[in-house]
């Protein structure tokens, strides 16, 4: 790309790609780049491992950009990596976190869809899979996980925005995430997935109104995360279990992660509440990322000290 990468602007895929390469090369003591798969259109999906200890027993997995049009999501993942590196030597809290646990950050899961949203259709949501015999393109990756797949609100119609795919984990992007998590299950204590919009901190279940066994703990953590968010700029984030706080859904990544045994699983729906929707202006990237950073650090400290 001819344009320069910026943390306070939205970056296209070539910019993000070169940023991933650069940040890993410049910070080898703290960052390593791992390829976890390829997209449907054969773009490499990268994960950035952030942390001082190579064999840390605890880790938090964070993915961004499952839905293509939610541009603030990958912007946050880039911000997080930058802040983690920048504050490692200055902020004792960050140093303690990164000295004792790893973050696995996928800056952009749905790369093909993201590229499409930059070049062809700003409001593209799904990936770009055209594997179905239908003319319609794309699978909603957040309905493609193997957790009560294809039920509740998911659609079997490839033309729908919530099309769940031909089978669970039919999409290479989903498979890349699940394969990596499976192979690191013993260390991953928390799963965070970043979406927009509607300003919420959500936790399982989404596929049922039943409460998870550790509901009180997750609700308390979500409340604490929302409080941390509000402490900076006063933005109010709702919190609660997905099904009751927004609506029931199935095949979602946070439920899947929870069912794999990752008992601290959260979905963040970032700014805003509809004034801008998917068009959150670049002038709000910084504030949005700063407030979510506080929430992630709050959760990380809990995971570090309590699990």
């Amino acid at each position: 790309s001819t344009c320069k990468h910026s943390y306070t602007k939205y970056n296209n895929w070539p910019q993000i790609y070169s940023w991933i390469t650069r940040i890993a090369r410049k910070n080898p003591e703290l960052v390593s780049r791992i390829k976890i798969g390829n997209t449907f259109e054969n773009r490499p999906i990268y994960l950035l491992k952030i942390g001082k200890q190579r064999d840390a027993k605890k880790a938090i997995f964070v993915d961004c950009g499952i839905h293509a049009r939610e541009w603030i999501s990958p912007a946050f993942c880039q911000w997080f990596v930058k802040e983690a590196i920048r504050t490692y030597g200055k902020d004792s809290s960050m140093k303690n976190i990164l000295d004792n646990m790893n973050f696995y950050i996928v800056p952009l899961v749905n790369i093909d869809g993201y590229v499409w949203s930059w070049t062809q259709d700003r409001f593209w949501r799904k990936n770009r899979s055209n594997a179905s015999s239908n003319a319609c393109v794309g699978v909603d990756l957040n309905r493609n996980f193997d957790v009560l797949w294809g039920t509740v609100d998911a659609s079997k119609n490839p033309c729908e925005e919530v099309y769940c795919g031909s089978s669970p984990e039919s999409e290479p992007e989903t498979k890349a995430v699940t394969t990596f998590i499976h192979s690191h299950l013993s260390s991953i204590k928390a799963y965070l997935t970043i979406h927009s919009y509607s300003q919420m901190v959500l936790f399982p279940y989404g596929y049922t109104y039943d409460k998870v066994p550790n509901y009180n703990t997750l609700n308390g953590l979500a409340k604490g995360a929302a409080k941390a968010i509000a402490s900076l700029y006063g933005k109010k984030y709702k919190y609660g279990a997905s099904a009751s706080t927004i609506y029931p859904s199935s095949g979602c990544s946070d439920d899947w992660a929870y069912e794999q045994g990752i008992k601290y699983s959260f979905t963040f729906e970032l700014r805003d509440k509809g004034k801008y929707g998917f068009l959150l202006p670049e002038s709000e990237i910084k504030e949005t990322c700063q407030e979510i950073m506080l929430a992630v650090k709050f959760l990380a400290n809990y995971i570090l000290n309590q699990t």
Partner: protein
Amino acid sequence: SSARRFDSAKVFRVKPQNEKQVNFMRNLATVIQPIDFWYPDSALQIVNQMEVDFLVSADQTENVEALLKDNNIHYEILFQNLQEDIDKQLDNKRN
């Protein structure tokens, strides 16, 4: 191919006040196409008192407004001309 444009496309917000209005909104997606639900993710997820945001292409906005009025459903328009807001999202200098 050229990028899809959203000139004069609108984003509506409605808040169904009863089950009749909920059903109307769920059916709207089958009558008017294309409708892109921004929140919730699909028409099936609409429930009473939920704020529903949805994108309507320029050629269907008059129909949608007429249908909403006919059914006494209060609405607001979040985006009058979506393409203008798309163009505003990125820093103009960089564009």
